[in-house]
């Protein structure tokens, strides 16, 4: 177990975190029974706060669990996260201010609202809402896997670690559900700032200790095969970073973050600066290599079962003093909790506005908000249940599969911002076909057994990310359909 000063630091900061979460409700107070107040913080977040909030979506368990564990197991291919983080903001500064403007003018709160308004299709909007909700679930589950990894390393040696860490997780989730329910997005924003500061400080601390100790390059000396990308994986590399870059801003939680901004130009500028945030992600990814030069950390990972999800916490515990480890662990722990809250809020919005409201159009705004609040609680515990049933290595693949699902909404979303000429039936067929093909290719690539890869051996391209193949199919259907069904020019 982590020595007492580490546990004390962890618990003290957790109390501060909870206090901030509840205080958020009073901050820049609005009427929290109104959905756009609860879910978008009244659209009053300035450049700095949007930076932290959207940055919080980025610095998730994806960054400190999925990517380092991928690098640890497979090497350079998982560094795709770096070009992905740069390029996603290139797309975002073009499309997101456009979305913000339309949303502000027409009162949209979700991406599905936009699809419904632009293409005048309830079917398309509901499909997009369902895809959004489903794609978020494995993302939330991954956050919980990250929190579990922290607890496993922190509490190792305490009798029955599994039971103790599961009980701790349930407690953390009850607290989280309580403050999300009362404070909405405001609570998440304040806690995001605390989390970002703690994680940044921890990364810098570990890098300094490693740099002045064995040196940053020692891991590459110990594992020379990880120095570069195998030439057979180049198509896999770019297909993975391109599709991931397109997918990020299609996730409901990212759209939610953008729409909470004060105006389109503030959103654009804060988004443009976000690649800076990615430098921390790149360093964390390198932890997956650095660990090979640190025998204490590799032994710790091995003794706890050898799972790559333990790489970052094990390395931190091996190089930092125990009090600093406690602080870093809390940063990573709430680094899973905060995005989980933001994601559950965005799922709740979709369920309430774009699914339930379609069947109960006369619902009052207060009833709508109440359902959304309870739905956000429900989604969190659904994801928690999911993690207790599914094993952690599997969760990383499921998150990538979530990306394959969500990117299929790109033609309707980004396409709809660029042109009014896309045919709604073409969009519906393209979306449904590409999702079905995506599931089939996932199964086929893994020989219909447990999912361990998202690459499909594509003729002429080698290992190719499934999301790129299915997005291509989707785009071909949408464009061909829209050309054939093009309205006759009226005189």
């Amino acid at each position, binding site marked *: 177990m982590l020595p007492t000063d580490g546990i004390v630091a962890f618990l003290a900061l957790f109390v501060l975190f909870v206090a901030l979460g509840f205080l958020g409700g009073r901050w820049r107070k609005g009427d929290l029974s109104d959905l756009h107040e609860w879910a978008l913080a009244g659209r009053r977040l300035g450049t700095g706060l949007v930076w932290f909030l959207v940055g919080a979506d980025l610095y998730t368990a994806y960054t400190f669990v999925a990517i380092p564990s991928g690098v640890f197991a497979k090497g350079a291919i998982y*560094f795709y996260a770096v070009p992905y983080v740069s390029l996603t903001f290139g797309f975002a*500064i073009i499309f997101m201010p456009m979305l913000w403007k339309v949303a502000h003018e027409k009162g949209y709160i979700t991406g599905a609202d936009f699809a419904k308004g632009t293409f005048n299709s309830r079917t398309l909007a509901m499909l997009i809402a369902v895809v959004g909700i489903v794609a978020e679930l494995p993302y939330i589950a991954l956050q919980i896997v990250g929190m579990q990894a922290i607890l496993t390393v922190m509490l190792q040696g305490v009798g029955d670690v599994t039971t103790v860490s599961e009980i701790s997780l349930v407690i953390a989730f009850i607290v989280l559900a309580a403050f999300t329910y009362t404070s909405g997005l405001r609570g998440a924003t304040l806690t995001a700032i605390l989390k970002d500061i703690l994680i940044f400080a921890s990364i810098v601390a570990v890098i300094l200790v490693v740099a002045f100790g064995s*040196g940053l390059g020692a891991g590459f000396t110990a594992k020379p095969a990880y120095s570069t990308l195998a030439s057979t994986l*180049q198509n896999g590399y*770019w297909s993975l970073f391109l599709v991931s870059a397109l997918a990020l801003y299609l996730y409901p939680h990212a759209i939610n973050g953008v729409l909470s901004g004060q105006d389109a130009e503030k959103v654009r500028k804060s988004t443009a600066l976000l690649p800076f945030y990615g430098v921390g992600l790149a360093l964390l990814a390198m932890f997956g290599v650095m660990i090979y030069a640190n025998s204490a950390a590799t032994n710790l990972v091995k003794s706890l079962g050898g799972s790559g999800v333990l790489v970052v916490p094990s390395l931190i515990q091996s190089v930092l003093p125990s009090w600093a480890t406690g602080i870093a662990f809390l940063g990573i722990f709430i680094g899973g909790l905060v995005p989980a809250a933001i994601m559950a809020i965005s799922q709740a919005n979709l369920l309430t506005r774009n699914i339930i409201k379609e069947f109960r159009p006369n619902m009052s705004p207060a009833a709508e908000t109440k359902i959304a609040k309870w739905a956000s609680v429900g989604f969190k515990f659904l994801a928690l249940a999911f993690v207790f049933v599914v094993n952690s290595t599997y969760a990383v693949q499921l998150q990538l599969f979530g990306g394959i699902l969500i990117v299929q909404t790109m033609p309707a979303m980004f396409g709809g911002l660029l042109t009014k000429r896309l045919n709604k039936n073409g969009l519906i067929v393209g979306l449904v076909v590409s999702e079905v093909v995506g599931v089939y290719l996932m199964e086929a690539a893994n020989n219909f057994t447990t999912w361990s890869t998202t690459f499909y051996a594509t003729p002429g391209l080698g290992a190719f990310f499934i999301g790129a193949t299915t997005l291509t199919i989707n785009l071909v259907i949408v464009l061909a359909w829209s050309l054939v069904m093009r309205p006759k020019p009226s005189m």
Partner: protein
Amino acid sequence: MKSKDAVAAVLIIIPFIVYFAIPTYNMVNPMWGGVPFFWWYQTVWLALSAVLFFFAAVLMGRKS
């Protein structure tokens, strides 16, 4: 206004070209503090793309 948008477009496209040109950075040397070129070059480009995107954002935001 048109020329501003064109400049902004070029600024945004540069990081795409850099990252898609995988053979130009998929190598071990020159190393930096023992870290292979593949790893540090792409990390440095994160900071550079933030700067380029920021100038692009400022240009796009200006009223003509």
